[in-house]
């Protein structure tokens, strides 16, 4: 900071490090900057003037609407990365159950799985006709809100495919990799997770499914509610058939792929017990701490302005609420809003 002391306005305007400081400061830099300004009131005027100019001058953006961009990218992919003879990695989910046992699907899944899982990289979201496929190429978990208000915390290296609009009778998603689900309750519209050789059926609950291509086994762990687990080939067309097993909270089932055997046990994982959920207690809680706790618990990034939310507290019992419900409740209480973009939650509020 000291080096800017003798800079003229013009020098500041075209200085790389200064522009970076203004346009993309780290939180530490932002703090240091404010402190510096407070201590150098004589130079502050030039500094602030340069800051205003750098922030305000822009060029015409020529932005392509997101829909057009996705469409254009889709066209590129269909001529390159998705061109090979196999044009069918995305089977419509509605027919998924009917052909569940067929070889084609398994082959298709393996191809998607391979392609999606090989590399952790950026984030791709593609809208293909009726299905949405999302892959987490980053190194942190990503939050996805489904149209029915359910939340999926997609773990790194995982892919989830779901229809743009769910069926009237059932909600179906297809998972490769690992995800934690918090499903909004709707007994008339059961929720199915199709993953590898397993199908998990729930009515409204939270649970984790781990089904990486490379793993020897598939694991389903239940946090709350009841879930029914099926082997893929055990549920032909009738989904009301008896399940392989019913899991209660804090139970898990491990399906071994090789011999189709399974083992049920209690989750040793204290991660899933509600006590360790820091948002669970009924007390006046600092909002920033709540967000931090949720971030840790779900592994999802929650971005908020620490300074602005410093004085925000809520008095609420959040026990048993799902992540999206907690976010709704807290934001309502402190008059803030939130957005989910690329798997990350951003809280927008002016503070309390």
């Amino acid at each position, binding site marked *: 900071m000291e080096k800017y002391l003798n800079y003229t306005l013009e020098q500041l305007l075209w200085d790389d490090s200064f522009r970076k400081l203004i346009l993309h400061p780290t939180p530490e830099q932002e703090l240091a900057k404010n402190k510096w300004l407070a201590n150098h009131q004589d130079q502050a005027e030039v500094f602030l*003037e340069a800051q205003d100019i750098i922030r305000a001058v822009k060029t015409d953006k020529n932005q392509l609407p997101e829909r057009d961009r996705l469409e254009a990218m889709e066209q590129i992919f269909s001529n390159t990365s998705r061109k090979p003879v196999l044009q069918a990695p995305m089977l419509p989910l509605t027919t998924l159950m009917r052909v569940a046992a067929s070889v084609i699907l398994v082959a298709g899944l393996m191809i998607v799985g391979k392609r999606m899982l090989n590399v952790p990289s950026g984030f791709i979201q593609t809208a293909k006709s009726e299905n949405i496929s999302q892959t987490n190429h980053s190194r942190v978990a990503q939050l996805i809100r489904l149209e029915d208000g359910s939340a999926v915390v997609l773990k790194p290296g995982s892919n989830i495919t779901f229809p743009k609009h769910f069926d009237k009778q059932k909600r179906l998603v297809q998972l490769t990799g690992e995800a934690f689900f918090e499903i909004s309750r709707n007994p008339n519209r059961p929720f199915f997770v199709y993953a590898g050789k397993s199908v998990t059926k729930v009515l409204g609950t939270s649970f984790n499914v781990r089904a990486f291509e490379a793993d020897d086994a598939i694991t389903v762990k239940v946090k709350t509610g009841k879930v029914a687990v099926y082997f893929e080939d055990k549920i032909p067309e009738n989904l009301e058939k008896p399940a392989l097993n019913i899991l209660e909270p804090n139970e898990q089932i491990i399906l071994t792929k090789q011999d189709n055997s399974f083992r049920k046990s209690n989750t040793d994982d204290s991660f899933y017990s509600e006590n360790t959920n820091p948002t669970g207690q009924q007390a006046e809680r600092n909002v920033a701490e709540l967000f931090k706790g949720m971030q840790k618990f779900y592994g999802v990034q929650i971005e908020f302005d620490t300074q602005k939310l410093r004085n925000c507290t809520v008095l609420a019992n959040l026990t048993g609420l799902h992540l999206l419900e907690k976010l709704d409740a807290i934001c309502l209480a402190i008059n803030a809003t939130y957005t989910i973009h690329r798997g990350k939650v951003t809280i927008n509020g002016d503070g309390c």
Partner: protein
Amino acid sequence: MAASLSEEELWHLFIAGDSAAFEALVDTTYALMYQYGSKFTRNTDLVKDCIQDVFLNVWEKRQSLNRAIPVRAYLLSSLRRRIHRKVKYDLIDLQTSLPESLFETVFSIEDSMIVREESVFLTRKITTLLNELPQRQKEVIYLRFFQDLDRSEIAEIMQITPQSVSNFLQKSFHFIRNSWVSKVSVSLTVFFDYLF
């Protein structure tokens, strides 16, 4: 901070045969390429076509691509060349003369970003001056300060030497400094005249 891979890392993975990395690369660079391409023509379909051509070409040549190039500069320069070629053909058809550079952009002001009332005047001034720059100087300023590219990357994109990039920048600064000083002092004189 999201720990996503950089464009360079994606490039390496893509050349190593990873198609998901290719898709991620398209995803992260598409908006930027579109933005830059649109500065040369108002025909948005042409821009999209050219971007597609660039990526199809990159995909087909993936076996023989260089791992160690600055990715963004490489993509932007390929795009620039393609658009120029296409627009040139169009212009020949129309029998119009070809301008030296096609780059066109308008610098403007985002009022909401200005905190201090006093800055408004200066910001307007500098924006006006930026818009008075010749096309190629504008392009260098745009790439340097609005796309955060360095001297050698800009040279690669515009097909000129790094020294020319520096010259363009110096010229622009010089122009702004001179006009700025004279205009500010003129308006100050007027202001004082009014006072006394």
